[in-house]
């Protein structure tokens, strides 16, 4: 198969890169190596939540925070993508979300502070409208509402933690639970089952009225698990919130995160509807390079080997989750060039003794040139027409700074620009 530009990846970076190419009128093919587990843990798009790994003070203005980060760390992927990459990528994504039927809020000038399922405030930049009412910069009291028999969001836990850290007085946060129509507490049901049911008007009305009755008072906002519709959140959310009669906000749950599914499923479908070709479940396993250029990449799909020939390539893989890196016992190897990106005598070297500290393995990835080309130790590109975006870039770990989404957008956008210029 031949294409102008091939994008490989299943996360946000791959989607942004593909959209960028498509909007520029280029012929792109999106190669989807497999379902990424990020799908199930994604919710908001975090640009920069904390300026370093040890501070507890959230970044208030992500754009200014990123500018400072670029000034302090000229080799950081944000510096390679440039502030302009972040801005343009964000604008492109926000427009795309709107075109795809989402209602999201996005403004690089401020972070919202949203309570998580354990009741910890978390800074996020781009968020669905359905989460925004949880913003803790506002003062109105919060009622967390859970469902009997549903263990993936525990309102009592969230309320207890938040009431201590949020300092709006003891009675400003409380927890309630309601029984859902047609879900027996002893039975197995997941967020996805609930999300499907919420698309049903009768079900939704009944739940709304039970919540209204349970809460009783006025002047509160209601945080409920993010299960308000599996596909078309916008209508479900706004009609539900109206029926509850209080501002309502969704809180991401234990996996499967319906918010992640909604986002990725819709964007993926939308890009296909707009005419971009996708190749499914095809992990790449080889790049053919000659004269400093990548000529073809080979995919394994349904046991067959399928070559893809393009003028340029964007590798927008997310760490090891979707197979960007193969983590052997001693070496972490990339699937295209078979470069050993890291070697460890002992697997323990990849981790910190504490799960809650930065993990060395998380920053393993492709070394890149200033144009995001994968490079060797000496900084020479492995192939002049290949560009890397997202989690597979070496040297940073988005976990502690809460910056995975923003980095995906900025590098995805920038890699696409470079691929077009190549």
């Amino acid at each position, binding site marked *: 198969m031949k294409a102008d530009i091939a994008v490989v990846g299943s996360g946000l970076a791959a989607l942004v890169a593909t959209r960028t190419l498509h909007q520029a009128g280029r012929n792109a093919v999106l190669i989807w190596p497999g379902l990424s587990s990020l799908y199930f843990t994604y919710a908001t798009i975090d640009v920069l939540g904390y300026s370093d790994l*040890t501070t507890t003070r959230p970044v208030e203005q992500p754009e200014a925070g990123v500018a400072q980060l670029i000034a302090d760390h000229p080799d950081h992927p944000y510096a390679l993508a440039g502030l302009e990459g972040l801005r343009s990528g964000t604008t492109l994504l926000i427009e795309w979300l709107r075109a795809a039927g989402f209602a999201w809020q996005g403004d690089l000038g401020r972070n919202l502070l949203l309570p998580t399922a354990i009741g910890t405030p978390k800074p996020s930049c781009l968020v669905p409208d359905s989460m925004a009412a949880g913003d803790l910069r506002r003062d109105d009291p919060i009622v967390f509402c859970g469902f009997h028999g549903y263990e993936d969001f*525990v309102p009592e836990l969230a309320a207890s933690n938040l009431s201590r850290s949020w300092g709006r007085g003891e009675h400003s946060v409380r927890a309630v639970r309601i029984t859902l129509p047609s879900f027996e507490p002893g039975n197995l049901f997941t967020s996805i089952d609930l999300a499907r049911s919420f698309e049903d008007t009768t079900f939704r009305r009944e739940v709304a009225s039970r919540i209204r009755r349970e809460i009783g008072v006025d002047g509160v906002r209601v945080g409920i698990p993010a299960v308000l519709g599996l596909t078309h959140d916008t209508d479900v959310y706004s009609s539900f919130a109206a029926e509850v009669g209080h501002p309502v906000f969704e809180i991401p749950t234990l996996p499967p995160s319906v918010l992640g599914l909604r986002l990725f499923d819709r964007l993926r479908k939308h890009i296909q509807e707009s005419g971009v070709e996708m190749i499914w479940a095809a992990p790449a396993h080889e790049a053919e390079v000659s004269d400093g250029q990548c000529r073809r990449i080979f995919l394994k799909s349904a046991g067959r080997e399928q070559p893809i020939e393009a003028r340029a390539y964007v590798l927008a893989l997310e760490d090891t989750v979707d197979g960007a890196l193969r*983590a052997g016992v001693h070496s972490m190897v990339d699937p295209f060039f078979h470069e050993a990106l890291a070697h460890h005598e002992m*697997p323990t070297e990849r981790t910190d003794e*504490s*799960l809650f500290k930065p993990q060395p393995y998380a920053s393993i990835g492709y070394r890149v040139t200033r144009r995001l080309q994968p490079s060797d130790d000496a900084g020479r590109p492995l192939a002049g027409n290949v560009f890397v975006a997202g989690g597979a870039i070496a040297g940073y770990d988005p976990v502690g700074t809460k910056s995975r989404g923003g980095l995906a957008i900025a590098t995805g956008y920038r890699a696409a620009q470079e691929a077009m210029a190549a």
Partner: protein
Amino acid sequence: MPDTTTGVVVIGGGSTGAGVLRDLSMRGIDAVLVEKGDLASGTTGRSHGLLHSGGRYCVNDLAAAIECVEEGRILRRIAKTTVEDTGGYFVSVSEEDLAWEPRFVEGCAKAGITCERIPVEEARRREPALSRHVRTVFWIPEDGHLDPFYLVVGNVESARRRGAQVRTYTEVTGFLKNDNRVSGVVTRDIFTGEETTIGCQAVINATGAWAGFVARLLDVEVKVVPVKGVMVVLSHRVAHATINRCHKPGDGDIIVPALSVAILGTTSAKVPHPEVLPIEWDEVHHMIEEGALMADGVSTARAMRAYAGVRPLYDLGAEAEGREMSRNFAVIDHEARDGIAGFASIVGGKVTTYRLMAERVTDLVARRLGVRTPCTTAEVALNDREDEMDQLRHRPAQLGVPKPHGDELGLQALICECELVRPQDVAPWFKDPAVRTLEDIRRRTRSGMGPCQSAICSYRLAGRLVTERGLDGPTATRAMADFLETRWRGVRHVFWGSQLRQAQVTTGVHLELFNLDRQLMHDLPPSLAGEGRGGGFETAEVASQR
């Protein structure tokens, strides 16, 4: 005046102490068990869970082998639900192994171990996992899996129903004495630091590798050599039956299919202290390599974690070291030996022989107390009350057989999807004051023992700490973090392939989605996490129940 009194205090909540507690209670003797961690948190919960047929010892330690044969048969009767009758293979893969065979066959015959040589092709048909390196195979029908957690909890619950008491996270720090007679113990609560005294007529020291430390509190010596062993857990059973190398017991020569996982073991290295158990990469690596010699699939299976235990090898004074030392146990009558009345120690042995060990030491102490009721633990089943074991833990994971009550699994709510643990399996334990960390719930239910290593169930369990135990959010969150952290310590040693990818889901959920790392930087109660022990939770309400 001591704070409370009882007949006998049992120190140590491993298989030995649990067995002693039950034995005492069945002879009508009042007893309290004190354990400084959780039940089975010492060596017992860190064994392979091999129900020894005796085959491993029949050449070097015939007496131990015979004990295994007899006790194995008793356990199959009295503790049916803790035993899985897998049977076992003893396989030869080298010239040396082949040279060992005649001695093995002779040893089995002497010990009364059923042992059948089967042609390799036939063995492979039965057990396709046997590797191409395997040259000869013996079938030992009486090897099996013994669930150490279930066994300990089963013994303790049986004793509790007969009036015995249990105090976990309670360390014995001293003794009460009247002249040369022990009249009680001084204990300290690990979490609260609170000191209590328990008066009694006798104390039984069943602290395994720690027995020397406890004895030293009375200025007597019990020589126990702490010998570390490392094990690796694979995410599926790999083989139907246990597999042993047919040779002089050595490193990496056991594979035990244990419920939903397989355990590879083990190594042998003296350590300075029973709580200093570093896991070395060489040990992990070696175990996987050696295991792969016996069974295919070992090197390609998903390794989930590694852990270490410490053997309580009783030093009989011989020159022998490590594995050469006897697996046999010793009952030490400190009245006869050291002139200290009311104190006995029981050390050495195996999980497999716990009942016999308990019987011997209880015989001694009962005699001293003038109690003539004979031991009945070999006859009365652990689940002598209706369905006790089912209430303790259902085991759908085992062999994939449908659950006994015919529940439709697919429709039931689950707390832990990996190990199929239901809300009703965990619920009773939140009410038990002996349960003080989420690790304790894990040991009693298997929640968190599967491939995701608690990424999912830790949140649900933390939620229940708030809703069912009445804890506040910060305490429950700390317990969740400590649970994750304890699991992480084992995962780190096998950090490649699927388990590395899995870790990204864990950090994705807890650090990115929940912002747990920031929550931990705020005002959480300090972690009490030690090696293998999650931090404890405690509320005034629960403490007052004890």
